[in-house]
């Protein structure tokens, strides 16, 4: 699964650490999701969508 996490984060000028704190996860988790090494669960994907204020399908895309 692809995602636009890095782009969205860059647009808001957030560091991985800041996003990790907003999501209440480790920075390594944000890095693993951003680089496509780990696909988040549905609850975490919804939390990410809430933090960015976007629908989930605008963040996560099919391969």
């Amino acid at each position, binding site marked *: 699964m692809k995602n636009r996490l890095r782009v969205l984060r860059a647009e808001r000028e957030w*560091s*991985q*650490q800041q996003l*990790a704190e907003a999501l*209440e*996860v*480790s*920075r*390594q*988790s*944000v*890095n*693993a*999701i951003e*680089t496509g*090494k*780990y696909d*988040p*669960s549905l609850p*975490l994907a919804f939390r990410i969508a809430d933090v960015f204020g976007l629908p989930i399908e605008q963040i996560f895309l099919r391969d």
Partner: protein
Amino acid sequence: MDETCTETPKVWGLTYWGWAAVFIVAMIGASFASRSGLVPAGAAIWVQLAPLVLVAPMAHAQLGLFRKHGVSSPALTRHNRAMLLTLGAFVVCMCLAVYLSRAYRPTGLAAFALALLAIAPVGGIVWSAARYLREETDEFLRHRAVNALLVSLAFVLIVGSLWGSLQMFGLAAPSLNLWVLPAWGFGFGLGNLWWWTRDR
């Protein structure tokens, strides 16, 4: 890209990798010394247990390394503390059991109780790992820990089966099965190392 700081944390001048190298060398050295007759037979068990004290600075350095790479959570900190305590308890219980066994030469039920005392803290290590998996709220860290535990299980199964098979065909000496716990810990470290390298 992983946004990390550049300085590698050290404990008493050594990084985690330095402590890991010292620990492995000490384990191999202790095993060699006790099997080659360099130390008296009665002292062999103490020599083999001695390198376990190195686990404390190694674990402390590892926590620093994890923090540097953004791998940190309250549950992980609690788990590492519990693991250190149970490992310390393992060394104390093992030494106490060996001392009591040599001093009083118990038989029957008393010998069985001493044997149980020696390995009782292993239950604490299993409990600590189970509690960590239950308490970890960061799903990626939990996923990583499960995979590292599977690597450690595979490592113990492969080494144990291979050693047993070699023994059956007279190619290896009978071993003290106390290697299982360090091998499990080593396998867990290998699993974490693999994930850490992959996620860099």
